[in-house]
């Protein structure tokens, strides 16, 4: 659209406005005053906001890091918005603000909740910071409501946190109980199995067998030793006579006689024969000679291998050997007996091992069950303690996820459109609307306002007659203009007067 055409359009529009000047003036007046009146009743808006910080922590995650996968919360803003805009939180806020019976009907309460939801805005401002804004007609209301909203939200989220950790604890506790039951069951099964099968385990049998085997070896060696000892003793016994002979007695006497004679001879060197000691010794020698004689006579009478008389004595060595032989033989016999017993035992052990091997699969399954369950149970027990700790922390308010980063302040100035804006906007809006309507009318109206369009028809255009301005019409136009200006001035005076009156509080 080039400039000339634009100018012509402007001319056409001015002409249309001029043709309907009173209507346009009326429309302008109505619209301006409407805007002014809207401004008069436009509620001033006080906006305040608080910033909360979302800690990216989850109670369950550290507890269940390996055991269970956790869904990660990415969009805190959405979570906070959904939470705050939930009917539960909003209703709590309303109840706190107006009391539980603040509204007569459920419909009114619903409306109040919806209104609150519309007025609260939640916006993420990055890095876990979330801005909660609220606007109301007065500064106090605005401040009161936002504090209530933030309080209720933080409290609710804390409660939720606590509930979450308690639930986590209860969950783990429950799991622990289940595992304990499983463990007990496994234990019971293992016990039952073992009570029904005394054979013990593979290792036991092996140990027992090796023990028995070594005992048998030892016994065998011991028996061998005993055999050798018995043989040696028996050989000795054959060489040894059962009784010791009289000759031995005479020999003893002979030695005594020699000793006595030596002593007498030594005495005779110094003393005479009549010396009492010599005399005594002589007698003694005589006695011994007699004894020797008797003994020799006895030996001649009895001879060898003749019944032992009262003078024959048993050979002590023989006696000793005999007793030893007896002991050795007894020991050997008992060892042989023990060897056979051990061998029997070994056979039994082998049988037992066979049985154990047959039941080994069953047992190892039971054992595995038991071991695994026990390991998990112990692990869960540990986690349960952690959960208990987390729960305790939460109950003491330590693990809060949301905290107020920047508390709300009472707003000092209203935001949005103020009365002055409306006063200024009124005439502008009125003018724009009127001109806009006329422009729209010209654009929409099919009637021809540009003679060029007639060229589309296959008919000669004889002439385009300009608008005739006679002095009369000029005068008329001038009068109309004056009238319009006067009217405009009056309207604006009324407008400004009304605006001032409203500003000064007269209305």
């Amino acid at each position: 659209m080039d400039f000339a055409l634009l100018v012509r359009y402007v001319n056409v529009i001015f002409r249309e406005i001029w043709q309907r000047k009173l209507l346009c003036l009326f429309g302008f007046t109505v619209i301006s005053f409407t805007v002014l009146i809207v401004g008069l009743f436009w509620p001033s808006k006080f906006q305040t906001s608080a910033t909360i910080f979302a800690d990216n922590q989850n109670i369950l995650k550290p507890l269940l890091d390996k055991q269970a996968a956790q869904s990660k919360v990415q969009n805190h803003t959405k979570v906070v918005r959904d939470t705050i805009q939930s009917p539960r939180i909003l209703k709590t806020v309303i109840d706190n603000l107006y009391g539980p019976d603040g509204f007569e009907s459920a419909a009114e309460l619903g409306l109040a909740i919806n209104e609150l939801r519309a007025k609260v805005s939640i916006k993420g401002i990055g890095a876990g910071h979330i801005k909660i804004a609220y606007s109301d007609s007065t500064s106090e209301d605005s401040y009161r409501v936002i504090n209530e909203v933030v309080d209720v939200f933080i409290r609710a989220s804390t409660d939720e946190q606590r509930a979450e950790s308690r639930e986590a604890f209860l969950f783990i506790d429950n799991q622990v109980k289940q595992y304990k039951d499983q463990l007990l069951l496994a234990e019971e099964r293992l016990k039952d199995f073992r009570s029904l099968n005394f054979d013990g385990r593979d290792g036991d049998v092996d140990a027992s067998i090796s023990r028995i085997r070594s005992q048998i070896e030892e016994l065998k060696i011991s028996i061998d030793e005993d055999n050798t000892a018995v043989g040696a003793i028996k050989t000795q016994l054959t060489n040894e006579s059962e009784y010791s002979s009289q000759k031995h007695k005479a020999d003893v006497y002979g030695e005594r006689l020699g000793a006595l004679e030596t002593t007498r001879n030594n005495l005779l060197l110094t003393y005479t024969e009549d010396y009492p000691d010599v005399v005594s010794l002589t007698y003694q020698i005589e006695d011994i000679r007699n004894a020797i004689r008797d003994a020799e006579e006895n030996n001649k009478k009895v001879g060898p291998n003749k019944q032992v008389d009262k003078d024959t004595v048993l050979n002590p060595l023989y006696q000793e050997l005999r007793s030893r032989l007896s002991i050795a033989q007894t020991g050997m016999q008992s060892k042989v007996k023990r060897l056979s017993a051990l061998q029997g035992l070994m056979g039994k052990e082998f049988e037992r091992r066979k049985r154990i091997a047959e039941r080994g699969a069953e047992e190892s399954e039971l054992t595995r069950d038991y071991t695994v369950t026990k390991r998990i149970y112990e692990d869960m027990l540990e986690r349960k303690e952690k959960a208990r700790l987390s729960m305790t922390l939460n109950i003491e308010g330590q693990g809060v996820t949301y905290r107020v980063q920047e508390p709300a302040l009472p707003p000092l100035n209203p935001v949005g459109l103020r009365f002055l804006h409306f006063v200024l906007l009124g005439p502008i809006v009125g003018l724009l609307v009127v001109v806009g309507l006329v422009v729209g009318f010209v654009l929409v109206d099919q009637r021809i306002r540009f003679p060029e369009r007639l060229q589309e028809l296959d008919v000669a255009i004889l002439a385009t007659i300009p608008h005739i301005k006679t002095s009369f019409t000029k005068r008329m136009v001038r009068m109309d203009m004056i009238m319009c200006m006067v009217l405009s001035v009056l309207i604006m005076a009324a407008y400004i007067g009304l605006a001032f009156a409203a500003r000064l509080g007269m209305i």
Partner: protein
Amino acid sequence: MTDNLKNEPPSVTALQAVHSGSNSEIDRMGEVDQFSAKELERLKLINGQKTNVQTLNIFRELRTQLLRRNHKKNFVCMITSICHGGGTSYVATNMASVFALDKTKTSLLIDANLYAPSLDQLIIGESGVGITDYLSRVGLDIKDVVYATGVPRLRVVPIGDNREGAAEYFSSEKMQHFINEIRSRYIDRYIFIDSPPVTDSSEARILTEIADMVVLVVPHGGATMDQIETAINVIGKDKLAGLVYNN
């Protein structure tokens, strides 16, 4: 219009209604007092020497075109519009005036605009019987209904008082006779019919039959293309001399 009396007050000019049309000489046609410049201006009539040269030239050009179309013979030209208030009378009056500017030509303006007759104001003095009276009554002569105006060489036939059944009168033989009569009386007389909107009235269609040519006035912001096309179809392209866009 060199003899235009500038300083004469308007009230003095309204003297009497002189019936004309009986003279054979153009210069001897009964002239009454002429309009003053102010009156001309008030009636939005062009004149030969006045300030509004642009409009005058436009009408002169229009005159040239119409003459060329009819090979400089006199004709009956009907001026009609798409809608009421389309400026038909203004165009008709000025066209008649511009033809009358030529001292060798006279123009006759017939007011057939039943719904908004306006040509009475051109007549100085009281207007009496008009075209409808002539057509409906017996005993009236043509000269009885032709009036002189404040413009030299411009005559007017007013609408008259008997407007009911005008469509029938216009289609009557008497109407045909009337047109033929006034046309043949002076060969340099150009006849213009100020007609009602063509799409709105049956009279206009009947008058189209009588006229040699038709000029269609398109008012500013008054007609859509569809309406114009309908009007053109009603008139017929052979009769239609062309469009005049009236700002």
